[in-house]
């Protein structure tokens, strides 16, 4: 590597580090320093000892680990068949299934939990039916298991998206050679396909784990408080007490996130999973035998039914006037949509703008960090990854307060407006909070890409930049798309930082509007309607970007066919 190049790399790395320092590290430290100090400002570690002295906190910690681990397991059971069947077999509606499979991510937190309660709760449709017919009910939504149930249904798309990208990147010869040696079916999957898709799977699984470990919304809606994130949140937001234990819990969550992340990279250490011929041999989608197809479709339909139940629930809710202790709503109406369109069309535009900016920045930062880590030898480059990913463990409230505190005296140039009142700060908060998603996807995609493909381009006279632009990025397209989509979708439903940072209703995004409507005693119909609109808008976006990538891939395959093989 020549020195000018490594200078450029270092400059980019420093720019990213500066961005992370300004918008993540400093704001968070201005808040969580509480965990290390007395109110007179003197440093102390005593709060940490106090924290570990609490049985409740240890319990909460183990509960968080359990919920995280189990959610990964259940998410995998849902996502693996969806990904495998649709990528590796001739499957009608594969794109549709993959798109539908992503929908749960767009479920805004309040709406999703409300819809799940209406369907699976103690007086939900399913239990009312069970009770009517069989005289018993199932506590789907109770306690830790309820949290696992809801979290797995909500976050399995992280695994699905990354796995689909990883599976599509596996050279089909890898699979064929195993078949040739006698492997088929489950064994083929377990021994060859799954291990080869491991970078993608781990990326997804790590995200699910981190997300569930740090999620506060779902447990609180289900009234589960004995987990770490809930304890941190409850203590930080309790009024009037300057309670350092909540901040200690936050710091410990950040550490746990970094450790989990480091663990997943440690598993992959020293392994070169790049398949040389990306798309080298056109992917032969196998045909399913009729009985296999029956099983596969049966399973997928069942999974999709459960997974999309909340969407069905909010759809019903959005058209309902009153839905109370009944299997279906009593009366139906279009009023909720009229209300929403009258009051909140600006929010839709805001959501698209903020999330577009955030996801765009996330992807750019994600590619840059992934490239610096996997393709350069810069010292301490791994820290960019750790710091960026630690964002996932920062409670939104903490980040929001941190921004308000850090940029308090910062004026926008040419105006007397404070920076904290400028809407861009919301988009930046989204960028920082959702960067870990895009980053994991970009890392997995680049990991699967063999360096020789880049060397070939450079050999043909392309500069580093041109190579990244013309070879790396297009070949990473699947992973980048997955990253963009997850960042975008999850930013669209971000609430905790949003609530802190909205300074004018005209700047509010949809998630704020949903929160507002869901607080209404007159029923959650308008909130559900806004939720449905959010799901449709973002879902359509996902579907079309998926199709775009597919068509691109299909035309490339067709060309390969023409030129030989």
């Amino acid at each position, binding site marked *: 590597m020549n020195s000018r190049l490594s200078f450029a790399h270092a400059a980019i790395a420093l720019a990213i580090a500066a961005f992370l320092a300004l918008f993540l590290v400093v704001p968070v430290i201005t808040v969580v320093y509480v965990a290390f100090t007395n109110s007179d400002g003197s440093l102390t570690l005593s709060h940490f000892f106090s924290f570990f002295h609490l049985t409740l906190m240890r319990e909460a910690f183990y509960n968080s680990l359990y919920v995280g681990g189990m959610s990964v397991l259940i998410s995998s059971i849902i996502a693996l068949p969806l990904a495998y069947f649709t990528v590796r077999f001739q499957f009608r509606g594969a794109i549709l299934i993959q798109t539908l499979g992503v929908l749960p991510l767009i479920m805004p937190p309040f709406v999703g939990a409300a819809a799940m309660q209406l369907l699976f709760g103690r007086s939900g449709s399913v239990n009312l039916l069970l009770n009517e017919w069989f005289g018993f009910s199932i506590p789907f939504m109770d306690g830790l298991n309820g949290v696992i149930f809801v979290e797995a249904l909500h976050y399995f798309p992280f695994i699905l998206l990354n796995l689909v990208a990883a599976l599509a990147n596996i050279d089909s010869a890898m699979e064929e050679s195993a*078949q*040739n*040696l006698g492997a088929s079916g489950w064994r083929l999957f377990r021994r060859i396909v799954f291990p*080869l898709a491991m970078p993608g799977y781990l990326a997804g699984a790590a995200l699910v784990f981190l997300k569930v470990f740090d999620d506060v919304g779902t447990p609180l809606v289900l009234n589960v408080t004995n987990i770490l994130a809930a304890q941190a949140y409850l203590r930080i937001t309790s009024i009037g007490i300057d309670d350092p234990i909540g901040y200690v819990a936050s710091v410990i969550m950040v550490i746990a996130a970094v450790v989990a992340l480091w663990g997943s990279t440690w598993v992959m250490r020293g392994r070169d999973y*790049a398949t040389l*011929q990306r798309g080298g041999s056109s992917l032969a989608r196998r045909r399913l035998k009729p009985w296999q197809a029956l099983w596969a479709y049966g399973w997928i339909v069942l999974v999709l039914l459960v997974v999309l139940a909340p969407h069905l629930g909010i759809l019903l809710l959005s058209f309902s006037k009153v839905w109370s202790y009944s299997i279906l709503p009593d009366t139906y109406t279009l009023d909720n949509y009229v209300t929403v369109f009258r009051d909140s069309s600006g929010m839709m535009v805001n959501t698209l703008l903020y999330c577009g900016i955030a996801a765009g920045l996330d992807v750019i930062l994600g590619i840059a960090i992934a490239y610096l880590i996997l393709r350069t030898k810069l010292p301490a480059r791994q820290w960019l990854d750790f710091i960026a990913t630690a964002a996932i463990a920062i409670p939104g409230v903490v980040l929001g307060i941190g921004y308000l505190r850090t940029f308090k005296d910062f004026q926008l140039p040419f105006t007397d407006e404070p920076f904290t009142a400028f809407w861009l700060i919301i988009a930046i908060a989204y960028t920082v909070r959702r960067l870990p998603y895009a980053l994991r996807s970009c890392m997995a995609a680049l990991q699967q890409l063999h360096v020789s493909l880049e060397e070939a381009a450079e050999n043909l006279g392309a500069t580093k930049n041109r190579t990244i632009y013309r070879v790396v990025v297009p070949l990473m397209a699947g992973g980048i798309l997955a990253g963009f989509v997850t960042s975008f979708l999850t930013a669209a439903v971000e609430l905790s930082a949003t609530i802190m940072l909205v300074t004018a209703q005209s700047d509010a995004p949809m998630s704020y509007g949903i929160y507002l409507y869901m607080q209404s005693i007159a029923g959650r119909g308008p909130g559900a309607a806004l939720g449905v609109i959010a799901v449709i808008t973002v879902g359509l976006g996902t579907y079309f970007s998926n199709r775009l990538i597919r068509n691109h891939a299909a035309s490339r395959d067709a060309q390969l066919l023409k030129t030989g093989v």
Partner: protein
Amino acid sequence: METGHKTDTGVSVDIRNISLSYGKTPVLRDVTLAIKPGEFFALLGPSGSGKSTLLRLIAGFNQCQSGTLHVGGTDITNIPPWNRNIGMVFQNYALWPHMTVDQNVAFGLEERRLPRTEIARKVAAALELVGLADFGSRRPNQLSGGQQQRVAVARTIAIEPKLLLLDEPLSNLDAQLRLHMRVELLALQRKLGITTLFVTHDQEEALSISDRVAVLDGGVIQQVGTPMDLYDRPASAFIANFVGTINVISGTVTATSSGAIFESPLLGRVPLPAAVATSGSAQVAFRPHTLSLAPPEGQTAPGTIRIAGTIAGREFLGEFIRYNIAVQGNHLIADQPHYSGNIEFLPGSAINVGLDPTQLTLLPT
């Protein structure tokens, strides 16, 4: 030999009337081919000729729309790849990066649920056979190209397949290694006696090691024969050109009682050694090294037809020099052995070309 093959254990392969198309693009058209037990058989053709498709079809990765496939007398047309027991070595080796060399080689044996000790024994034997006995604990990305290729071969022969398929097995190796490996492959095949089918686009590779060769083009089998058959009696101008370098002259042929006469402006009237069924326009072909060259004042060899021309260009190829000679608006290619003291012709100089009529091959039209 540990893997247990005897020369008489090779199986026959019977490909009957197989057609295959991707969508509307036909890739194989009515292909019929019989391969004898123990044969080292090459599928030769340019890229896009359908040779790899045919190989993958035999392995079970492609499904034909019509026709049948028999291996060792058994119809396997509808058997899935994992039940065929046909070994295949992939062009890029397809070694699994998440497994060590040992694990790669053991994979097929594990799928066959062999006892652990037997697997260990067979893995060791297979690696021994390819000369990689000490490499078992490495990962594929720690091996050189040639070593990876040997692992791929070891992995395949470890399962003792009844038929071995090689997809461009040498194309990813450097020239030196390629020569070495092809000799090794042949020796291995002879040792195991296993029927082997290999796909290549390199005519030299095909001619040098295979017992018989089938030439494919456009999804159709053009000719099947021993390397010498193909070389000496190509069935078409395409084969003649694809299998070595050749000169082709157009003219007319007339059947006579004793044989045939070929006539063209360049050659005049030339009697042909073989009889023909019909008269009409025809082509004759002859190899560059059958031509003799002489300076304009010198004589060509007795019994040859003398053609005057000019040297248009030359290539030094080590064992011989290849001259491109302009003759009456046509070009001929002539190879002259190179040894010290031999006369060298410079571009631009006039020359006499001697053509031995017995070396002419009449190409079917």
